[in-house]
């Protein structure tokens, strides 16, 4: 690991300023992804600003009937919150499907969103990777691609975003609330928060340098039947091959978001208008334009089948 300076932040504005003006500085919260990457010198910050002392660790009701989740609420606490379990079950289920308890106890709401979109070639520093070294090429393309993206990918990067939580946040249309180094605040719809790789796969979110997430806002509950179905190579503690988050309302309408298939949580609102035509119509539209390899072509079929199962289960209540 490269040496770095370490400072405990005293306020959100101070933390944002510190990271904005210090060269190669990063926030650290749970650290479960950042430290892992620092050990491998894939991430080499010169300065860490520890935001753990800033509060942002409560879940409060909003005036429009939703919930405001503090950026530093740990994944365990978000999944276990009684209001989340009752009104946003898809979010609880997604969180509980991810990582191990040890990691969920440490990992934060904001850090989960900011974990790197990654693949084994990103981790292997002997391989070319446009995320690690922009412009160097992508060793995954033409390599072993069982876990890689099939939609929304580019010729520069085919990595997938590994978060389960973010899939549920996308389904729920959460908003990411931030403070910038100049003290201004903004609210970013989760749909716009993560970027597709394009020619700049090393830039994964729309956050500006020093911009700090303070909370994530959940709109008022949708009702309906919530489900998060994660298909993986082992029963626990593994990334999704494919995951499908659904909220299905009594009239048969609903929402679908898919994980394990793209550089960001994958949701196509237009596909949801096909709900009355059944799972095949929805999945066809969701996966339209999929570019697959021999290794990962199964993911398209898996999305179809997992969605069909979720829609059937919702019908039965």
């Amino acid at each position, binding site marked *: 690991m*490269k040496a*770095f300076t*370490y400072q405990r932040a005293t306020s959100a504005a101070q933390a944002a300023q510190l990271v904005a003006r210090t060269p190669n500085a990063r926030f*650290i919260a749970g650290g479960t992804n950042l*430290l892992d990457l620092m050990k491998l010198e894939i991430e*080499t910050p010169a300065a860490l600003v520890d935001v753990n002392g800033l509060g942002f660790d409560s879940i409060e009701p909003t005036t429009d009937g939703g919930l405001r989740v503090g950026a530093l609420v740990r994944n365990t606490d978000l999944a276990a919150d009684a209001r989340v379990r009752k009104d946003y079950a898809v979010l*609880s289920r997604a969180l509980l499907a991810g990582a191990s308890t*040890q990691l969920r106890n*440490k990992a934060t709401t904001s850090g989960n969103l900011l974990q790197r979109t990654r693949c084994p070639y990103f981790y292997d520093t002997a391989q070319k990777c446009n995320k690690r070294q922009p412009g160097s090429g992508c060793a995954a393309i033409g390599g072993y691609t069982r876990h890689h993206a099939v939609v929304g990918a580019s010729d520069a990067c085919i990595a997938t975003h590994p978060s389960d939580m973010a899939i549920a946040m996308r389904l729920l249309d959460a908003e990411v609330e931030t403070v910038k180094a100049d003290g201004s605040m903004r609210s970013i719809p989760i749909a716009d928060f993560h970027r597709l790789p394009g020619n700049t796969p090393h830039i994964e979110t729309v956050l500006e340098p020093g911009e700090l997430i303070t909370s994530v806002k959940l709109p008022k509950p949708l009702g309906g039947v919530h489900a998060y179905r994660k298909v993986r190579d082992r029963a626990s503690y593994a990334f999704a091959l494919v995951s499908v988050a659904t909220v299905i309302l009594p009239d048969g309408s609903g929402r679908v978001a898919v994980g394990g298939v793209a550089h960001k949580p994958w949701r196509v609102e237009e596909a949801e208008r096909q709900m009355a035509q059944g799972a095949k119509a929805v999945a066809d539209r969701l996966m339209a334009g999929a570019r697959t390899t021999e290794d990962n072509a199964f993911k398209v079929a898996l999305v179809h089948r997992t969605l069909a199962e979720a829609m059937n289960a919702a019908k039965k209540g």
Partner: protein
Amino acid sequence: MNPLSDVKLTRRDLLIAGALSASTAAVPLANAQPAANQSADDTSTTPAPVTTGVTFTVNGKQVSLQLDTRTTLLDALREHLHLTGAKKGCDQGQCGACTVIMDGRRINSCLSLAVMHEGASITTIEGLGTPDKLHPMQAAFIKHDGYQCGYCTPGQICSSVSVLEEIRQGIPSHVTADLNAKPLLSAEEIRERLSGNICRCGAYSNIIDAIADVGGVKA
């Protein structure tokens, strides 16, 4: 010092010397490849180590340390406080051998910087019980033969103690059927909740028996 030149060194001394040089000097291995994202200029200028003070409580005793900021909580416990119960297995949060209990919650001590735990209260396997007065979970692991080589055992026991506490607190898991009901202590729940602790010897079924025994149920 070349440890190999001194034949009087014990194997343990050698291991300690190796561990210390690994944790403090971060000397690049001769055959290590520089990360592909580093230019030649970057690798030639290694930034100087930075130290920071931190004070936390370990097994009821307050300790203050001045540490290289890179020191993980695991290395602080093992190399600086000589609490070698928590083990370094994968060093990337996958195996669970480094599991300790921090402010009542189990974490991977390998994936946390020691300096991030100012004011925290940490319990390691050494703080759960002693050879004369075993924690009930330690006694149950012995009774049910919940280990073979023992390397993962401190982490398994810290996790197991936490599993019972998490279920008592009503924290749900991936296999909890009804999110709005209190989770039950079952073999299925124990398996899921322990998925972050790997046992290469494969003592899993006996570990489940030990936890169920302490939890007062039959696995």
